[in-house]
């Protein structure tokens, strides 16, 4: 009777999936840039697939409309390896005796060992994780099968405090453990009961997930978006009523396994699904934004996926060509304007200029006094080491010379002098103040 009830629950939960007859398992954009094409892998259920041709499908991108289908291929990836993550329930109930007289955990381990015998290690990779209150790594993806056997036998009964069944959070977590998006990925979960989370039933936050309990809808979304299929194996009379639905919507299936032999069929089922997959190739022109969304349709069935479009500057806009050309000319005119701005010009009269402040003083016809006094022609204030009339530049109009005269030694061009005829570009240093002398001269060409 129990068996009939469980089977009915599974059938009822998978029933809504019959309307979903197309499932995209992967959108491969690796050839988008260099070949301008996208490969879409998908499976079809409940459809007569004989004689299918590219014309039977439409692929539409939200902004670009229908895309040109260039190829349709069945079993395009049939030789591809599969990454499996086996997720085993290690909650307290798994250590109860099953209907066969042995503990369920022993039955699950046997089932997993049987599954591992089918693995083709040259192509497939396997990882094993166990969950109860926590998710525990038993063997990371890629561990050799003999090593996995050894690690499986080392799984131990959890302590009393670890007896919760974080089924949903664990399912969400393991989906993140696959590297990349390419290739076929499958999660197989062996469980004997329902999701029973610490936060919902233990009244306290989980040390890793806090108050988060992933919903079945979120699990389905994650698995669909990342192209991972979920297969469930129930090994008790209890069943998580939502699990069968999650498995179906991810593209996997749910098995009510009463013997260890039956689990071998799961591997065969998954292999068969991949063998039956189709690959459709479309030409993808440059899209306007950085993201696109494609929708694959066949008659009433359809499925959609997002894709990333490598367009740094975006695609076409509504700006008219005339405006673009005008802006181009405007930019070039700006360059031209900068070109014609004079940035420097030689001096037209003899002058001294402060290096620090750029203050300029035109030299007098006779003498120009440099000093601390306010009455000096060039005042250097705030320096007690400078006399009120520290130095004088004398202009000999007849000879056309400028001579620096000082009672105390000052530096001209880093050399101490008391009397020195200046030439354009000489640098006068007085007690830390630097003054540049310049005058029109023969350097002009």
């Amino acid at each position, binding site marked *: 009777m129990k068996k009939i009830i469980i089977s009915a629950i599974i059938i009822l939960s998978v029933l809504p999936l019959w309307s979903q007859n197309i499932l995209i398992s992967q959108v491969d*954009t*690796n050839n*988008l*840039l*260099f070949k*301008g094409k996208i490969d879409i892998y998908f499976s079809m259920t409940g459809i007569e697939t004989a004689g299918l041709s590219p014309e039977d499908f439409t692929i539409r991108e939200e902004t670009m409309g229908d895309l040109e289908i260039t190829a349709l291929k069945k079993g395009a990836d049939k030789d591809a390896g599969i990454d499996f993550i086996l997720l085993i329930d290690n909650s307290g109930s798994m250590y109860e005796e099953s209907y066969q007289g042995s503990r369920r955990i022993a039955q699950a381990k046997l089932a997993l060992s049987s599954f591992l015998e089918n693995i083709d290690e040259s192509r497939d990779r396997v990882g094993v994780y166990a969950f109860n209150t926590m998710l525990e790594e038993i063997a990371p993806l890629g561990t050799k099968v003999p090593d996995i056997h050894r690690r499986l036998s080392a799984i131990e009964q959890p302590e009393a405090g670890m007896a919760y069944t974080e089924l949903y959070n664990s399912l969400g977590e393991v989906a993140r453990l696959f*590297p*990349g*998006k390419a290739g076929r990925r499958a999660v197989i979960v062996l469980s004997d009961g329902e999701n029973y989370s610490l936060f919902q039933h233990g009244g306290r936050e989980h040390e890793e997930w806090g108050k988060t309990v992933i919903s079945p809808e979120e699990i389905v*979304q*994650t698995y669909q*978006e990342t192209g991972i299929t979920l297969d469930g194996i129930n090994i008790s009379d209890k069943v998580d009523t939502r699990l069968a639905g999650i498995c179906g919507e991810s593209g996997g299936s749910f098995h009510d396994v009463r013997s260890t032999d039956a689990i071998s069929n799961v591997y065969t089922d998954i292999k068969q699904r991949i063998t039956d997959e189709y690959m459709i190739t479309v030409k993808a*022109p*440059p899209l306007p*934004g*950085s*993201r696109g969304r494609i929708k694959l349709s066949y008659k009433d069935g359809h499925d959609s*996926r*997002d*894709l*990333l479009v*490598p*367009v*740094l*500057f*975006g695609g*076409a*806009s*509504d*700006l008219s*060509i005339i405006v*673009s*050309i005008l*802006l*181009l000319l405007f*930019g*070039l005119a*700006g*360059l031209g304007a*900068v*070109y014609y701005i004079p*940035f*420097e*010009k*030689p*001096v037209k009269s003899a002058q001294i200029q402060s*290096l620090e402040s750029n203050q300029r003083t035109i030299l007098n016809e006779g003498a120009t006094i440099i000093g601390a006094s306010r009455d000096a022609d060039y005042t250097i204030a705030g320096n007690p080491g400078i006399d009120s009339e520290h130095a004088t530049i004398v202009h000999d109009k007849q000879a056309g010379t400028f001579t620096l005269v000082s009672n105390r030694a000052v530096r001209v*061009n*880093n*050399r101490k002098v008391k009397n020195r005829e200046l030439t*354009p*570009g*000489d*640098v006068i240093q007085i007690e830390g103040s*630097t003054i540049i002398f*310049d005058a029109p*001269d023969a*350097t*002009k*060409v």
Partner: protein
Amino acid sequence: MKVNRKIIIYLVLGVCAGLVSFSAVELLTAAGITSFLALSLAQGAALGFIFGFVFGFADGILYKELKSGLMKASVAALIGAITAAAAMILTSQGMIWTSGFINLEHKQTMGILLPLWRGAGWMLMGAAIGAVDGIQQRASRRTLAGILGGLLGGLSGGMGLEFIIRYLPEASLARAAGLLWMGSMIGLFLGEFEKRFSYARLRVLNGRLKDREFLLVNKKIRLGENLQDDLYLKGYKKVARAIISRADGEIYIEGENNSRILVNDQIAETKRTLKYQDVLKLGDVKLLYLPL
């Protein structure tokens, strides 16, 4: 021209380059290119060509040398086109490649990742553009300064675009704003990093270039009267060629090919160490050495 004024000129040139490149990108996208690869290459090359040309022409603008300035700018434009096209392909393929590791339909993740991707792409483009001058001069320090300036300018432009795109969702407006902002920021940061990477400046004391300041960035700098010289002294009857070099924390000057140079009014017959406020006389031009 003081150093800060030169940075402002760079900024203005960056804005002009941004405007011209925006128009070029618009014309390219309107050209109906149907291949991702061709469009990416064309956009990257156009952007690099324009920015390379404009910043390569900076010396021509500063010295009012049209012909030789255009020649130098043309080489810079070619280098810019190649580096920016390569950067564009790298960015685009990088976006595709990394998209394999994340969930594209997770809105929160994409809300963070997309701006980061674009920011990284713009940074790479900025770095490619910024490196042009250093590559042309075969000067590692200048290349590094250009790359850093370009990275920051590109990042700033990319972030500016992300900010603007929220308020101006139309592709052309956002692109215009982003490119103008990126151009100005690349110009600003190129100038700023050149300043930060310099170890001294030379100020012209007389003649046509009076008050112009040159930043010394490279380990070896040739001073002369050709536009190809690292430090171009235009507008003097006679300019003695000299080389300034940096080694073991000291800065040296020497005449090139026995040309007569004076340091503090004394003939420098051999390689000579420079110190604060030394006055260099190379023919008719006088320069003040100001270590930083």
